[in-house]
């Protein structure tokens, strides 16, 4: 029953549940990072055209892909919070936003550091790059709006509207590659053969998974503090073992 389900999604039970889950996510993320980096740096061969610089890919691609994915997840949570008035989903949305913004920033940063040796410029105004920049702005707008409103309930609802409207923009920005000449993934970037080396693929997917788990772990920790901040007047929070001890 839907109502029952919402009851289980009440902050009090969720708080305990994720408290137990966080270490699992954190540790598996750490281990996968080590494995991924090992494959990426020691197993995967040097790329014929790009030399060692291509190894940036193993951090660039996961952060890039996740930055977009996280936005959609965040917008989804925000929409849920707005429509069903579930406090928890709004909190999840605000917990995801900073991580998403950081991922977007990392994508830009690693991309820029990759671009300099490959294209000879830190930055080109290519559609892919620009759209990533715009994504960063969307995140920052979400965070800024939430920070600007004092009342958390109001902040949730206002920023949810923004996130929803903004998510309409994501595909438009993303597909604008089509309408634009593009350097990213253009002729400069070609891996040996039609497909990547198996080890490269393995490293990339491992790193992607590791990053994903990292995102989950970090945002769950953040959502726990958000829950504490917002529910500070409730009895169950005052009775928590970490508070009473």
């Amino acid at each position: 029953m839907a109502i029952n389900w919402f009851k289980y999604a009440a902050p009090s039970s969720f708080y305990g549940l994720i408290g137990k889950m966080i270490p699992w996510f954190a540790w598996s993320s750490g281990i996968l990072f080590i494995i991924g980096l090992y494959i990426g740096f020691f197993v995967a061969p040097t790329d014929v055209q790009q030399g060692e610089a291509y190894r940036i890919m193993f951090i660039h691609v996961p952060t890039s892909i996740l930055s977009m994915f996280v936005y959609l997840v965040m917008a989804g949570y925000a929409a849920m919070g707005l429509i069903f008035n579930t406090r928890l989903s709004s909190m999840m949305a605000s917990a995801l936003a900073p991580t998403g913004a950081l991922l977007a920033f990392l994508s830009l940063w690693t991309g820029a550091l990759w671009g300099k040796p490959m294209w000879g410029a830190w930055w080109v105004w290519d559609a892919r790059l620009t759209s990533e920049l715009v994504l960063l702005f969307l995140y920052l707008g979400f965070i800024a709006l939430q920070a600007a409103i004092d009342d958390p309930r109001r902040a949730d609802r206002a920023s949810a509207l923004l996130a929803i409207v903004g998510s309409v923009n994501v595909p438009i920005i993303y597909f604008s590659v089509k309408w634009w000449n593009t350097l990213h993934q253009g002729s400069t970037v070609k891996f040996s053969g039609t497909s990547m080396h198996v080890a490269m693929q393995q490293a990339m997917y491992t790193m992607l998974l590791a990053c994903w788990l990292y995102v989950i772990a970090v945002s769950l920790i953040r959502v726990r503090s958000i829950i504490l901040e917002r529910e500070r007047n409730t009895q169950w929070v005052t009775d928590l073992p970490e508070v009473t001890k």
Partner: protein
Amino acid sequence: MNRLSLFGLLGLVIRRDLILAMRRRADVLTTLIFFVMVVSLFPLGVGPEPDMLRKMAAGVVWVAALLASMLSLGRMFSADYLDGTLEQMMLVPQSLSMLVLGKIVAHWMVSGLPLVLMAPVLGLQFDMSAQALWILIAGLLLGTPILSMVGAVGAALTLGLRGGGVLVSLLVLPLCIPVLIFGTGAVDAAITGMSVASHLLLLSALLLLALVFTPWVTAQALRISME
């Protein structure tokens, strides 16, 4: 009880906002002059080579239009909010979305339409071809209402917040980028002889989308901001 028809309401709100704008005729003029000035600043900043200027023209005009309509967003709700009129508007026994639509239309007429009318003059300054000019105008005609509508959402969300003026740009500019891309894309296509229709069609689609959703979203945002 007396109740206005939907269109009566729309007309009334538009008329009201136009009267208010006319009471400060300077307002209308200044958005326009801001637009003209931004466009004219570029040759000053960039240098006077005609070839480069011609290439830049559509982009500069579009960016200036975007900024000008951004600048006038603050006006859309904040005065009404501060003096309590907005509160009263939410108590009007009629659809708030419709009322919002009225305000958006009035805003566009005051700060979007003059830009569209001014654009040809500026385009000539940059030595654009007649065909490119027509496309520019068509694009602006489709695009500036979208800017007003998306801007309304941002203005409503940031209502009563300090620093709202800048925050609203942060929220709205990314959302307006597609408009900018299609608008300038159309002109580029016209210059390079490619098909213009697809860009303009996309702009029309965006306009329709915005027309359907933004008044409602703005109304919701207003309700949230008033709480």
